[in-house]
């Protein structure tokens, strides 16, 4: 069978598995729909959390990003795993003890205020939609490249699948499909990594392989990579280019942001006991670490392989993946010196960076771009970083079934995260906005109906993001983590560890974190894009890392404002005591 049919087979099989699970685990009450009846085993919850967490960004984009950033890319590895330590030690067990359905539920109850609940709901919806938009783009890329269907059709198929198991099964359906999706995605990530590691270093464990010597030589892979990247005019692969303070703040913003992401937190509401919530966070991080410790190895292999297989190669003899991705528009080649050979080095190949293709073909048969070459450097290749993981098996010439497996894995990663996000959006609307604020009289049955409706609406909106992708998706990812770190995390942390904090303090803190972080990011990412460089940044902190500063501000303002107003009522003190008790 050729790769294309294999891909259809793998994707088809995995999709029918998800649908089967959805039918088997339908939700019959709000308790089932919001938190899977609190009956999920900690290991199953760990897997579901891992699938929920590892999105299209982790699966598709991260290794590619690190491949081009080198050591600077470590911020993602540390930032997106270290948050789980905070989650396990500072939040998960206590929020599970609290025992309600949603994150705004805790904030609204602890700060005895519907205004606090509303602010939390707004932050939650903003964070979650930002995230969903990215997932749908991932689904679109995979469908168009591997199944050669129209991107829009791909997005619609993805929407139908998610609709089916999220609306029908709620948290219960999502949890068990996520367990299956984790298995698919981790298998799909490890198989090519192990193959490539054996091919390049002879070591079957990628985590060790990328610190090993290249096959039949005494040269360490990373030393060779450092040398090659420096020769081509890039920074050495294992050295930082960003300043330490910026790396520090970005890592911190990602860590605290991770710990404040509602769709991750809510997963810990589904286990039976408080001690299970802790254990479950541990298992979740084990399952996540399997992928996250493999990713930097994949990055190093991919960068090395990419350079080896295109450098000084005649375009007409270039490997087939090069042309396949060129056809989709994610690779472009401009023969600056007109020698017919591909030359890759530092700098932008084209003016305006991204290629804008005309319908013509060039001398060697390449796609012609409307934008002019950037003649300040010799680089002839534009490559979108997102394709490295997807192209990696082809670049390393692995068999067709591995390529097909990667496509199914990428879809699993995107769909599992999208479903988790859609669920927290729908729960915050039906439970927090309707049941707790505007329509307190509705019955459980009606609430369940509204939960299903809002899930359906959220899926439609997410689908629209996939079909008409807003150009700013990449820019707003910093937003999601920055806001989670600057608003939700401090409110939760102080809610548990600082009894004296009253509603005035909490609301002032959340709002100031929200305003200052948004203002900073909007200023540098949308309004004054040309000023987005370190000499204009506050203390040299980039917009990606500013959530950390916003968080510190939130803490200071919340505590300060608290002292001007009355202590929280007695029952809040009792509630916090009760949460803290085992």
């Amino acid at each position, binding site marked *: 069978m050729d790769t294309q049919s294999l891909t259809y087979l793998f994707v088809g099989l995995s999709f029918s598995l998800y649908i089967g699970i959805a039918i088997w685990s339908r939700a019959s009450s709000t308790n089932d729909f919001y938190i899977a009846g609190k009956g999920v085993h900690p290991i199953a919850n760990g897997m579901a959390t891992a699938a929920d967490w590892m999105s299209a960004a982790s699966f598709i984009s991260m290794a590619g990003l690190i491949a081009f950033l080198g*050591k600077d890319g470590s911020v993602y590895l*540390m930032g997106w795993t270290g948050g789980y330590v905070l989650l396990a030690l500072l939040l998960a067990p206590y929020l599970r003890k609290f025992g309600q359905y949603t994150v705004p539920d805790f904030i609204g109850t602890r700060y005895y205020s519907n205004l606090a609940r509303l602010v939390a709901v707004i932050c939650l919806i903003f964070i979650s939609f930002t995230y969903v938009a990215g997932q749908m783009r991932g689904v679109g890329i995979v469908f168009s490249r591997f199944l050669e269907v129209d991107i829009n059709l791909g997005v619609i198929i993805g929407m139908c699948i998610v609709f089916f198991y999220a609306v029908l099964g709620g948290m219960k359906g999502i949890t068990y499909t996520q367990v299956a999706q984790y298995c698919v995605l981790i298998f799909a990530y490890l198989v090519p990594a192990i193959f490539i590691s054996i091919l390049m270093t002879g070591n079957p464990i990628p985590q060790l392989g990328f610190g090993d010597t290249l096959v039949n030589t005494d040269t360490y892979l990373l030393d060779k990579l450092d040398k090659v990247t420096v020769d081509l005019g890039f920074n050495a692969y294992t050295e930082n280019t960003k300043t330490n303070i910026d790396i520090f703040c970005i890592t911190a913003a990602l860590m605290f942001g991770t710990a404040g992401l509602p769709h991750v937190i809510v997963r810990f509401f589904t286990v039976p006991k408080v*001690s299970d919530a802790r254990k479950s966070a541990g298992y979740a*991080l084990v399952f996540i*670490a399997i992928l996250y410790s493999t990713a930097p190895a994949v990055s190093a292999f991919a960068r090395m392989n990419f350079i080896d297989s295109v450098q000084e190669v005649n375009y007409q003899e270039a490997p087939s993946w090069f042309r396949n991705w060129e056809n989709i528009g994610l690779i472009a080649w401009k023969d600056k010196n007109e020698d017919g050979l591909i030359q890759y080095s530092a700098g932008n190949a084209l003016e305006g960076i991204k290629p804008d293709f005309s319908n013509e073909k060039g001398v060697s048969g390449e796609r012609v771009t409307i934008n002019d070459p950037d003649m300040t450097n010799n680089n002839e290749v534009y490559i979108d970083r997102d394709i490295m993981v997807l192209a990696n098996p082809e670049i390393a010439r692995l068999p067709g079934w591995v390529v097909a497996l990667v496509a199914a894995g990428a879809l699993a990663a995107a769909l599992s995260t999208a479903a988790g996000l859609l669920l927290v959006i729908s729960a915050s609307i039906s439970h927090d906005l309707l049941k707790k604020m505007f329509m307190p009289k509705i019955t459980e049955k009606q609430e369940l109906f509204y939960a299903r409706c809002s899930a359906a609406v959220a899926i439609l909106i997410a689908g629209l993001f996939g079909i008409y992708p807003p150009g700013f998706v990449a820019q707003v990812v910093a937003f999601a983590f920055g806001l989670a770190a600057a608003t939700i995390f401090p409110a939760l942390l102080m809610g548990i560890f600082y009894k004296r904090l009253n509603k005035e303090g909490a609301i002032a803190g959340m709002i100031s974190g929200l305003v200052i972080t948004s203002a900073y990011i909007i200023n540098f990412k949308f309004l004054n894009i040309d000023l987005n460089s370190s000499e204009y940044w506050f203390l040299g902190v980039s917009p990606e890392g500013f959530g950390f500063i916003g968080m510190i501000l939130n803490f200071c303002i919340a505590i300060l404002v608290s002292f001007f107003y009355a202590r929280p009522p007695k029952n809040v003190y009792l509630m916090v005591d009760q949460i803290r008790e085992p």
Partner: protein
Amino acid sequence: MYKDYWRSNLKILSILLTVWFFVSFGFGIIFSDFLDQFKIGGFKIGFWFAQQGSIYFFVFLIFIYVYLMNKLDKSYKEKMNKNKSD
């Protein structure tokens, strides 16, 4: 009784979070360039902490926490029961 429990909990938290800070922000960022002059196999040590080591330590830290807290919970519950029966 409850206060003792909470104090022990905070002690465990602060020790583990200090380790958390050092393996990531410390070895992976602040002292990373310094540690990069030492090598194990093909890995510079600062680079290894930033891309591998910190993650392994995070996993380890959570399981240590689970173990310590389960022990603490158990002794707390035993004391409570003893108080009740007295």
